[in-house]
């Protein structure tokens, strides 16, 4: 039962594996990037559920607080703001590269790119 109780982490693991599997198994570069995105999102979910406190509210201290409020740990959330920025930047660079690869090779399938590279060198 304990294992089921942490179902949110099972979700994280599942998403991570889906993401990583996509990166490994798909030749299409955009699909690879989608896989990477899923992979990163899983980590964000991981941090967020780590910061969740049962019954806690948003970590904003209201007027007249007496110190007994229960609120979520704000730090993981803050960290994830940065991680989201990093993820977006990575995707942006990745997609820009895909566009240029498409211009240069006429394809975005990795096996085909590998074949062209080998023929070229």
């Amino acid at each position: 039962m304990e294992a089921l109780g942490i179902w949110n982490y099972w979700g994280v693991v599942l998403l991570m594996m889906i993401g990583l599997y996509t990166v490994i198994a798909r030749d299409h570069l955009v699909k690879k990037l989608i896989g990477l995105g899923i992979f990163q999102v899983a980590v964000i979910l991981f941090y967020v559920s780590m910061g969740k406190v049962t019954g806690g509210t948003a970590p904003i201290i209201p007027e007249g607080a007496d110190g007994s409020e229960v609120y979520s740990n704000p730090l993981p959330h803050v960290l994830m703001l940065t991680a989201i920025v990093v993820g977006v930047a990575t995707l942006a660079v990745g997609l820009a590269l895909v566009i240029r690869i498409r211009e240069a090779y006429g394809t975005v399938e990795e096996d085909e790119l590998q074949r062209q590279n080998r023929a070229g060198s």
Partner: protein
Amino acid sequence: MSEHLSALIVVLPLLAAPVCLLLRQTRMVRAWTSIVAWACLCMALTLLERVHTGGVITYAMGGWDPPLGIEYRLDALNAYLLVIVTAIASVVFPSGVILTDTSLPEGKAHLYFAALLLCLAGLLGITSTGDLFNVFVFVEITSLSSYTLISLGKNRQALTAAFSYLVMGTIGGTFLLVGIGFLYQVTGTLNMNDLALRLPELLGSRTILAGFAFLMVGGSIKLAVFPLHQWLPNAYTHAPAAVSAFIAATATKVSYYLLARIIFTVFGAAFVFDALHLHWLLMPLAIAAMFAGSLAAVFQTDLKRLLAYSSIAQIGYMTLGLCMASETGLTGGIVHLFNHALMKGGLFLAVACVVMRTGSSSVNAISGLGRKMPLTMAAIVVGGLSLIGVPGTAGFISKWYLVVGALERGWYAVSVLILLSSLIAVVYVWRLVETAFFGVPEHEVCEVPWTSWLPTWILIGATLVFGIWTDVTVGGASAAARALLGVTP
């Protein structure tokens, strides 16, 4: 002012990068990046001096005290590394070959320089910070700017190389992030020093162990430990020559630092090696890297690729030093890090000179150039000798420490393997010498201007100087090794 130095050294290149976009004019941007690099070098030297005389420097970013705030913490190891990174940057950035071999459109060079500065800022950030999440952020800054820089190579293969690096780099970075999360979950802190205090009681926890595994693999991807090196050969081969010189000489070194920091400072050698027996896993990989890298280098037909595979082998040597977990072994690893930065930086710059004149980086391009470009070819020969580890060159010093370290641990077979793999280096270096000095010239070329050969020779000359005058390198490295081992009881 001077107490902010440890933050300033990171912030300066970070803030200097956007300035490039304002300056726009190639000549001015180039001067600007050089000045920034030199300024960083001066700061790094001051910091190293201060660490050696006054001990560890800590700095609370924004006035928020650790462990809540982000701490910048410099000891003998990262101060030493700051000097290496900034020294390489201050030689490579002003060099005449910096724009050779790029596919930059006219008038876009300022973007390239901005990326270089960002990369430098990221590397310095990883090195100085004492906060694990901060490490992740700087790792990503470095990686993102590296992807961009690599994709600017002349051939279209640069694009696929950059993409592969992006995929692997992102996986590595994310693994690091997962590992950091596990550690935070159990300890509630991100500060490395704080972690080191809290972890010993919790080491049996599976969460911590999983976190350790993620951090190790993430770091190994960045370091290009065999067999996670797959991104490296193409990236170094197809990146612009000067970028290869800069990244090859610095990025893997900083990753090495990161791995050493996590192993020794955060977890402690006793846990990692005595309890976990990490060397059972890491040492075979290191030895495989030494042989696979060197052998693959023997058969390469492209100079940059040859050097890239040789880098994989050198990373193997450094990792081996890590596995020894003794003062001698770590000193060997860290000195090799320093020396390898010098010789690989110098060799890639020399190749950049070749590309500048012949337009090609294939091994055949240097055929018979011994007479036409004597300085460049001599640099390749000396750098090659240092890669082999010939006495009198810096490479000898580090291999010596590694061999002695292996003998101290009683790993006789390992010391023999180090010597054997060095023999393979003789073969690939000899191929270069033979081609350059006994081949028939294919190109009618002349020597590169001094702005190009001088930076090459500063680095190559340094390998000769530090092959004989070892006080600085070995002294710094053994201080760093002691700093790493000192935190463990």
